[in-house]
């Protein structure tokens, strides 16, 4: 461990919620979106509507891969 007496580290403006300014903080809430879309399985545990012949349960979750990428890209950009 280097310098245990030096009790501060450089605060970084791009750090997580408590680090940035208020308007930046709100962007981090977007990161909960994929969780919100997936945390309640009865919402999507169904066959219909099918996409091609793929059950809703399966394609809905695959679609959230792209939803997840979108949220991380947006939040990364907006908090830089």
């Amino acid at each position, binding site marked *: *461990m280097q310098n245990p007496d030096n009790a501060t580290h450089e605060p970084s403006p791009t*750090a*997580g919620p408590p*680090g940035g300014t208020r308007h930046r903080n709100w962007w981090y809430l977007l990161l909960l*979106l994929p969780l919100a879309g997936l945390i309640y*399985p009865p919402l999507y*545990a169904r066959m219909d509507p099918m996409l091609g*012949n793929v*059950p809703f349960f*399966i394609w809905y979750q695959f679609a959230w891969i792209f939803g997840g990428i979108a949220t991380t890209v947006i939040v990364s950009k907006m908090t830089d």
Partner: protein
Amino acid sequence: MTLAMIHWQALAVFIFLFLVVAVIGVYAVRWRKGDSNDLHEWGLGGRNFGVLISWFLIGGDLYTAYTLIAVPALIFGKGSIGLFALPYTIVVYPLMLAVMPRLWQVAKDRGHITPSDYVKDRFRSRTLALLVAITGIIAVIPYAALQMYGIEVVLAYMGVPPTGALVAGFVVLALFTYISGLRAPALISLVKDTLIYTTFIVAVIYIPIKIGGYESLFAHISPSKLVLPLNESSSYASLFLGSALALFLYPHALTAIMGSRSKKVVKTNMSILPAYTFLLGLIALMGFMAIALGLKASGAYGANGIVPELFLDMFPAPFVGYAFAAIAIGALVPASIMGIAAGNLFSRNIYQEFFHKDVSPRRSTSVAKIVALLVMVGALLFIITSPTKFVINFQLAGGAWMLQVLPAIFLALFIPWLDKRAVVAGWIVGIGWATCQLIQEGFSSSVHSLSILGGMPIYIGLSALVANVLVVFILTAVFRLMGARSIDPLVSPAVKA
């Protein structure tokens, strides 16, 4: 098929690829400048991996060979609940985008190599750092053992006596890990991912064509297996959330993150790692393909044999060797990082902390190297001598235990007023309650029905974490009322304002 007959063509391709990887792994030590006798270099690759290498390294580290075998096996055996791997690896990156860049920055600024380094520095508590180190080492050993199991399964399906061949594979692993440290799995992961991506992309295109397209694939399977039954909702949701929260607490995952060159590299990776999730989703569908084809999980490896079985049934021999090499090499990368991470933890947070304060950098690296070897030998012996079921159960338990260090790392990054005694107490309650529930389930299930929730089954690690966090908050409040004032020493006044 019989396991007795050796598939020579496949084996030749397999051995060739394995040797290529051995050479690359040993060469990796000279890949970049840096003294491999320094722990910062050996154990963290000099904290110098850019976006692309970090992507391969972290991807190779998280999506392990065992995952590639076990996820389709779970779907084949238990149906749609096995798909929990998909939401698990979707939500993990948005959640970790809030946490990992911050942790990377603190670790970089303060010279932390292991998660326990952070905990010690943050809480000024050797005890808490020790608990985190021990939890990590214990959780990672069965995980490394399951990587060896992944190698064993493909060897057995090529008709090779698995134990002897496994020892040969282990020698390759031990050699390059000892010599090159984290650079070896980083460089090997380039080869590994090329093999894995080509193998599974071919598989998920070619096999359905043989079945008659994805349309008829799903038409062959009863809806009860394709869609999650409502009574499994709470298991599904708590499993994927708990697993997502636990993933980046594992020492091997944090080692790969900390090896990144900059915070930007970490952030970018949270957006590009989902490429592996997409692949994992397609691989998961192989479980449905096996159901549609009416495969029987009859071999010595049960449902865990269905991926190799699909390959053997569907592909020409040389490609089978290629695919099996992809899986085996896919096991080497995480197994190596797990060994390195455990070595770092032991050297920094146990040996140096409690036995040898003024250790030289050279000595501390040797200790890490030796412990990395011991962990890998232990994992090898574990998988050879114990029933596989036992190793799998131990790994499940390890995940539930691992989750209990979340307050000490993730909460500690954001909440400056946590009391270290409260965090220790929370860990004890979390580990204790998780273990009680595991005992009630005979260690064979990761979910347990909770009477407070009307008998709803919940992932054991997650319910124990809730109890853990409650204890942390309540006791912190109690200690404050008694006059204690804890504050994060790593946070400057500027950040608080």
